[in-house]
């Protein structure tokens, strides 16, 4: 969490390897490997997933074909053969149910003409299919109605396992009613300035960020 402009999305973009950002100092180790040394697609194959705040549309590329390609790449990286068509479909239908995705959306072009909620659900569907080690959800709750929020949150909860971790970037406690965090970190001016349990989010909801900004100022 953190106020606008504190660097939450920047952090997500840097970790995912967006070319617009240059890392001038520091290092990032991901499962013992130098993350910054990897190309974006390698990071993804290593198990880093970013659910985009604004998922792009890719006209002409069917959602299912896109997923098939992505899943095959990630499997290849893990030394696995691509799934047989039948198995892929089974796997896909399983995960699709998780986010209550409409069947006709899957044959449509990636995100093209999707509503805001459908796009976000599609992100979670991709996450479910790719089975990442670390998923970063960048304001996945923005623009969602209550039902979509519940569906997305349920999906995330069901994917939770001892082998993976999820970083949820959000402004609102609302999402955290559904996805209960183990830790809450507050990012301000590019630094984590406060950490706590789920109560911290409630406190922020109530008091806003000013008191934290003040604390930081006093320490400086």
């Amino acid at each position, binding site marked *: 969490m953190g106020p606008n402009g504190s660097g939450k999305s920047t952090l997500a973009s840097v970790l*995912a*390897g*967006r*070319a617009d950002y240059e890392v001038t100092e520091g290092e990032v180790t991901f499962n013992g490997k130098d993350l910054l040394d990897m*190309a*974006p*697609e390698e*990071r*993804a*194959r290593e198990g880093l*997933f*970013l659910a*985009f705040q604004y*998922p*792009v549309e*890719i*006209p*002409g*590329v069917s959602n299912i*074909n*896109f997923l098939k*390609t*992505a899943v095959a*790449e*990630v499997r290849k*990286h893990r030394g696995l053969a691509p799934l047989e068509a039948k198995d892929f479909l089974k796997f896909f239908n399983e995960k699709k149910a998780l986010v209550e995705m409409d069947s006709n959306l899957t044959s449509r*072009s990636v995100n093209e003409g999707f509503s805001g909620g459908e796009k976000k659900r599609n992100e979670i569907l*991709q996450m479910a299919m*790719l089975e990442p080690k670390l998923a970063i959800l960048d304001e996945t709750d923005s623009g969602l109605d209550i039902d979509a929020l519940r569906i997305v949150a349920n999906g995330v909860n069901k994917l939770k396992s001892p082998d993976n971790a999820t970083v949820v970037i959000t402004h609102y406690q609302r999402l955290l009613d559904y996805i209960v965090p183990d830790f809450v970190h507050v990012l301000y001016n590019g630094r984590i300035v406060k950490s706590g349990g789920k109560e911290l989010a409630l406190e922020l909801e109530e008091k806003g960020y000013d008191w934290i900004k003040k604390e930081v100022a006093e320490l400086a």
Partner: protein
Amino acid sequence: MAQDILEEITSSEYKYGFVTDIEADSAPMGLSEDIVRFISAKKNEPEWMLESRLKAYRHWLKMEEPTWAHVQYPKIDFQNIIYYSAPKQTKVLNSLDEVDPELLKTFEKLGISLEEQKRLTGVAVDAVIDSVSVKTTFKEKLGELGIIFSSFSEAVHEHPELIKKYMGSVVPYTDNYYAALNAAVFSDGSFCYIPKGVRCPMELSTYFRINSAGTGQFERTLIVADEGSYVSYLEGCTAPMRDENQLHAAVVELISHDNAEIKYSTVQNWYPGDKDGKGGIYNFVTKRGVCYTNAKISWTQVETGSAITCKYPSVILKGDNSTGEFYSVAVTNNMQQADTGTKMIHIGKNTKSTIISKGISAGKSNNSYRGLVRIGKKAENARNFSQCDSLLMGDKCGAHTYPYIEIGNSSGVVEHEATTSKIGEDQIFYCNQRGISNEDAIGLIVNGYCKEVLNKLPMEFAVEAQKLLSISLEGSVG
């Protein structure tokens, strides 16, 4: 025997050799009446064929090279070209070491061979290596249905009445500079005749190859679909690495009689020259078909190769209720130039035409769509729909659209849609983030963009075309 030679030469070449060491039986360099006679004599042509060539040659001498296309290239020295070169049928030796590894990689990625094509699809292949058809396959099978599918030279001897009747009937030698040149010096090509009411049971296919150094390639294809017949014809091309430019001026004529349908699909992947624009094929082709009553002609092309492409597969909708279609993907990368499109000439009543053109420009290339839709005075209720989309990659390439619309009958309906878009870095990054490499991402996006056209290709061709698109655009983003 001849079958073995075909396999030996063709399948091995695709994997390894590009300058195949077939001992060429070439004409001396340059063009004159003597050369025209030489070519005709080489092919043991009848007198009427020689006369037709000479007539075309004499007419060509009076013509001027066209310069209206949006392409630039040094003036062609027509005396600096070998106009005839035939392979001797001897065993071919290949040396991997002589081949540019870049090209090898490309061919590996494409992974196509004639053999494979045949096995997969039962395609009949008429392989043209340089200028003479080595062997026509499946001929007997087709023969049972009365279908004629042979090299052009063979048809001149065996079916002179058909050649005399149809050759030049759609593209006369007076049509344009390169059509005249072709009519004078054409070396070989394919001839296809589908009798009345026959549906050709397989895709007919020709694999063209340009081979001996400095040899212009002047192919001639003639397809006649008699009343109520159907044929799907595939033309595919690859060419070896070359330093000097090569001229290719083919002529393709299609005749679709009453209630007949011809589907003509092309994947063109000739050598486009290197990154600096050195070398590559000049592809100046005249392709045109005529439709009689209720007939249909459909052109589908995927153009990724050649340094310069000027090509306008057209349909003359002469008969009432006839239909013309043009589906095109043209990719230019590096220094390539393409000026391509179609002409739909509506003459009959209730004629319909559809044009879907997808241009993709990358590198420093220029890609132009040039199309004409003409509704004649008597073409009541003619309809046309045109869609011209351009996709730009990077900021040094160009996309141009020159649509010409001439309407002579007020009952006509002509629609034209056009879009220009750019492959976004956001799209590529999105794919990256899902584990997909730049190269595959571009392939995915470009194939998505071209889907409407690729869907029109026969299945096995579509797969090849998809790979080609990705390969042609390699390294063009990021």
